[in-house]
Structures are given as structure tokens and as C-alpha cells.
């Protein structure tokens, strides 16, 4: 589980070292230059890695892709598509859900799944 209080770059470096990857080795695995990866780790980049790249990073480090994509300031590709499909209702739903506890959000998610299930019946 990622510590969301920490900046993305710092967490990335800590987890990378914890998993036993040197900077150059890890940069090779995710097809980034050591220079760029080092800048990301220092929080010096204007543009963070793409969602797809962060997903690969999270997978290599055994972390949640969704959580790490959010921490990196990116949005998963599928979410962009979902919002584009319902450009008014979906942002409205997200705004309405803002501030709910994690437990309340899980309940809402389950309710949504049930509603989808009924629609599919």
C-alpha cells in the first residue's frame, strides 16, 4: 500500500530500492532514461510519466496501478473514456461523491455494480 502523504517521486525511489532495482536497471525496465527517472524521483519534472508508464512502474513494484497513477497526477486511460461518454453526469457524480469516506465510497460502488447488474438482466 502506498503512503499517499509522500510525493510520488520519493515513494517511487523508496519502493524501487526496497525491491532491489538500481536506477539504471529500473529505467531500462520501464523504457525511460535514467536522467528522466532521476528527475521524476526528485520531483523535478513538469510532465509526470504517462498513465501507461506509471501502470508498468506500479506493476513492477507490486503496487496498485490506480493509486500510483493518481499519485503521479495522471488519470487512467479508461477513466478518461468513461468521462467522455457521460461528460455531464460523470463529473457531477464525482463531485457529489467528493468528501465521502472510503467506506461510503465502497458502498456507493457496490450499489452502482448492483444497478448495472439489474440493467443487464
Amino acid at each position: 500500500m502506498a503512503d499517499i502523504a509522500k510525493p510520488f517521486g520519493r515513494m517511487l525511489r523508496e519502493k524501487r530500492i526496497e525491491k532491489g532495482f538500481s536506477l539504471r536497471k529500473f529505467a531500462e525496465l520501464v523504457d525511460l532514461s535514467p536522467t528522466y527517472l532521476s528527475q521524476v524521483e526528485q520531483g523535478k519534472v513538469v510532465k509526470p510519466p504517462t498513465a501507461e508508464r506509471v501502470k508498468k512502474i506500479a506493476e513492477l513494484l507490486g503496487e496498485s496501478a490506480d493509486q500510483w497513477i493518481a499519485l503521479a497526477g495522471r488519470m487512467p486511460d479508461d477513466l478518461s473514456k468513461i468521462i467522455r461518454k457521460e461528460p455531464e453526469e460523470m463529473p457531477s457524480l464525482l463531485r457529489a461523491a467528493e468528501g465521502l469516506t472510503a467506506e461510503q465510497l465502497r458502498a456507493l460502488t457496490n450499489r452502482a455494480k448492483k444497478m448495472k447488474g439489474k440493467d443487464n438482466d
Partner: protein
Amino acid sequence: MTRRSAKPKPDVPYLPEQHIEQHVAVLLAQFSDARDPITKPPVPIGDIVELHLRLTYEVEDLKALFGHPDVLGAIWFKEKIVRVDRSLDPHENTKMLGRYNFTLAHETGHWQLHRHHYTEDPNQAMLFGGRGKPAFVCRSSQKPPAEWQADCFAGYLLMPRDLVLPAWEEWRGSIDPVCVDELPAVKFRPDENSNQSAALEMFCKPLAAHFEVSAEAMRIRLEKLGLLLREQPNTLF
């Protein structure tokens, strides 16, 4: 590779090469005990720096940071930070891999050999990218004793005798040395000594690639080991 420090540095005690090689042997043994034994080249210098010595490693635009066009690396002892100049990034330029590894190994040499001889200046605490004043700024133009020692350390670290000798034997089919007069002559350099170095470096390029070091670093190491010769050895018969 020649380097020098940018600022006046504290004197470091004289160290014979043998002692430097022993320092390297201890480090490699500790790394092998703590992690994986190194049984074949290349030596995992990144793992040694970050995972074993636990130094923070960063790639930076050091030329801009220090305002010198020939800065290759720097080390901050107190903060335990090693920085390598971005011009050496092998992802951007694969030809730089050897110099990248050598610079990292060179800074490791400063860490292992010199950190106990150096006190950082507290008045410079927030200069140089908010990291304080580095203990050593390593450039490509001159070579005071500390830089020479770090170069020597890097050579032994990236090309330890126990890896070079078997690699040479596997490559050549024996441990017999090779003399420059057995190689194609090189004439494009201004003097005979430089031409000989170039011929030896062209010859040992495949082994250099194997160890992920420059041909120059490989040639220097092989000459030290007596595997590359500039003159045929004198024999009685």
C-alpha cells in the same frame, strides 16, 4: 580517464595501488555476502552504490550546476548523495555507458577511500542545488592525488582481477599476453605512444564491451595485469 577537483581539496594520505585493490576486494566481498556473488562481468556498479552502500544516486545537469563544461560527477558525503552528469546517460548515448559506469565507480572510490578525511563546510550548506557544497567535483582535465586514487579504485572495481583473467582466457583461449607489435599498426595519432595506446584499445574493445567500460579503461587495466604489452618480453633464448 583523468579528472580533477574543482576546489582545493584536503590532502589525502598516500595509498599504494595494492592497498586500493584490497579496499575494492573487501567491498566486493561484502557485496557478495550481502547480496549476490559477482561471478561474471559486468560488475553491477548501480547495485553496489544504491542497494549495498545505500547512497542516493541522481543524474543531473552538473555542467550547469557548477558552471564547468567538463564536470562528470560529484559526491556529497554528509547527505550521502552521488550525482553523475546527464551527458553520460547511456540511454541517450549508448557510447557513454563505459564512462557512465566509470564515473559512478570513481565516486564510489571517493566514498570508500576519502569520506573519513573530509569535513564539509557548514557555511556552504545550501549552495549547489540545495544540497550543500559537494566534497568532490570530478572533472576531466586534471588529476590531483584524491582523483587519481578514485580512478584507480574505479578500475579495480569494474575490472577485478578475478573476473578479468578468466574473461581474457575465455576470449583468447589462453592467458598469454598480447604485444602491440602483433596488432595492426595505428598511425593516426601524433606520437608513437598514443598510436600504441590506440592499437591496444581497438584490440581490447570486445572485452571492454563485456565489462561495460571504455576501451581506454580496459586497456589500462590489461596493461597493469601484464596481458597487454608494448614490448616483447626479454627472453634468454
